[in-house]
């Protein structure tokens, strides 16, 4: 068994709002092992972004960590001093953001920005520049030396995202967080970026926490998947298990809704009826109950715990308990 890199341990995060405490994350538990690619899926507003900002501790001022720990290489990031946390960011943990059109400083050349993020290194400027050129080459930017003098607006969206990946990998991080890195790109580029990430992952041996709501991409890229719904983990496990043998009704419906899985032609794409519950005013019991077509009486009473079903497959649903007990 390989070493665990990142452990999210019963993490609960609230946002203090005018309407009361918004429970953005509740009892999140999962881990990422060294060199592993873990995908996080879930619809908009399920807490993916809160989770990332909690790991990096770049949260909004009204964020409250209610309970739990985020352990990176064994040390709790939530307890770390601001100084130590800053040393970690961009060095041990890097991130690639969703919108490549927004993630570069518009008035500095790519070369200057890539030199600037090496501010921890003692190398000379020309060494830093050649490293930057090498990284651009590694992500498949042709003629990298000449490209270094150009400004972000002179690159296409796909190139900018590759530059962002190059910058994130520059310090050879142990963990790369990819926050929907392909959402803002079109389908052809998406494939390109995914293949590039796979190649780079083998080269740099970093773990990747890949956030997406595109199931196809997750299935293609990841070793393990964590399915989130309304701020909680509903199911997690090996990618094959999750896609071939989903144990939570939400996962099942999510897969049914994936356009890649639809066999019959229809005018209307399938959706999951209902809405995500109000996180500031949570109903008791299972959060998915209102939208679930298999709800049991017990679902209205207790929150189902995340149960180990088989080796490397966990789900939080009373239905599975029924099966076990029956």
């Amino acid at each position, binding site marked *: 068994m390989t070493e665990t890199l990142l452990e999210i341990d019963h993490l609960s995060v609230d946002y203090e709002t005018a309407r009361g405490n918004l429970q953005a994350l509740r009892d999140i538990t999962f881990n990422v092992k060294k060199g592993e690619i873990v995908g996080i899926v879930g619809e908009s507003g399920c807490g993916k972004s809160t989770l990332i900002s909690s790991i*990096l501790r*770049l949260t909004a001022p009204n964020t409250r960590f209610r309970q739990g720990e985020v352990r990176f290489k064994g040390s709790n990031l939530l307890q770390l001093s601001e100084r130590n946390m*800053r*040393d*970690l*960011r*961009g*060095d041990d943990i*890097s*991130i690639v*953001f969703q*919108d490549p059109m*927004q*993630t*570069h*400083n*518009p*008035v*500095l050349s790519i070369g200057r920005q890539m030199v*600037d*993020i090496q*501010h*921890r290194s003692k190398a000379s400027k020309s060494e830093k520049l050649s490293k930057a050129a090498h990284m651009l080459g590694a992500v498949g930017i042709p003629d990298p030396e000449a490209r270094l003098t150009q*400004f972000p*607006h*002179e690159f296409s969206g796909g190139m900018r995202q590759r530059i*962002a990946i190059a*910058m*994130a990998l520059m310090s050879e991080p142990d963990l790369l967080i990819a926050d929907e890195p392909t959402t803002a790109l079109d389908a052809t580029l998406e494939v390109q970026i995914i293949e590039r990430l796979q190649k780079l992952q083998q080269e740099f041996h970093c773990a990747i926490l890949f956030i997406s709501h595109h199931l196809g991409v997750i299935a293609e890229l990841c070793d393990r998947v964590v399915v989130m719904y309304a701020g909680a983990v509903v199911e997690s496990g090996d990618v094959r298990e999750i896609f071939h043998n989903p144990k939570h009704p939400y996962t099942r419906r999510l897969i049914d809704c994936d356009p890649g899985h639809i066999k019959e032609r229809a005018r209307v794409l399938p959706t999951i009826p209902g809405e995500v519950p109000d996180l500031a005013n949570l109903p008791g019991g299972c959060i998915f109950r209102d939208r679930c077509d298999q709800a049991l009486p017990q679902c209205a009473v207790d929150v189902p715990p995340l149960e180990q079903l088989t080796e490397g497959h966990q789900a939080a649903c009373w239905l599975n308990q029924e099966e076990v007990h029956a």
Partner: protein
Amino acid sequence: MSKSRSELSQIIHGVARDPLGLMGLIIVGTIVVCAIFAVWIVPYDPIAMNIKDRLQGPSMTHLLGTDQLGRDTFSRVVMGGQVALKVALPAVFGAMVIGLTLGMIAGYGPKWLDNLLMLLFDTIRSFPTVMFALAVVALVGPSLQTVVVVVMATSIPTYGRVARTQTLTLRNSEFILAERSMGASMLRILGVHMLPNIIGVLAVLAAMDIPTVIALEAGLSFLGLGVKPPTPSWGALLKDGYALIRQTPWLVVGGGLPIILATLGFTFLGESLRDVVDPKLRKQR
């Protein structure tokens, strides 16, 4: 260093390509050169009186005639340009640097500091500039330094507000979040990433502000509150010319024309600069 010099020459080339910018560059260049070499350009001592030759019209001996004390108007105009720049450049530069610093602190720092600085800016802004200047001059007496300080103090809020707004916008932008998530410290974010995004706007503002300051200095001198006579100033020339407009129109021309030219020149330059410093508008090299 060589890189920043090439950037500067790029900006100058860009300005020169634009007809208005070229005109601004020529006018501003002329004024600056005249001011620097004023001592060698002037044919007469600008404060030497010669009552015998008072109130003459233009001639070969006196290009723009003489004033009521027989002083050569052309010499006074040239030296007046030096005085105008001596007030405008330090005042604008000082206001820009202080305004930029305070504005960035207000925009990036804690809310209470922002409120405090904004209160300070608004307080300064609430005084009409000329009234403020009158009060200060009445207290400490007219001098070049007083004018510089007054102008600087009253224009700090303009720069401060612009810098603050820019900082606030940038602060929530994705690329700043990206820098933070890459472990950049606050100083690095402000200095390396925000400053280049703000400085262009402020430089343009400064170029456009210089004529205002020149006009303000002229205005204060016109009111007799600017530089002390007999130091030549465009405003003082206007004032003398205004009183003597029935005897000779040349003093008003000598004082007014350079103010108009300077205003136009710096404004053209500023406008053109604005288009050039924005890298998104910069033409492909």
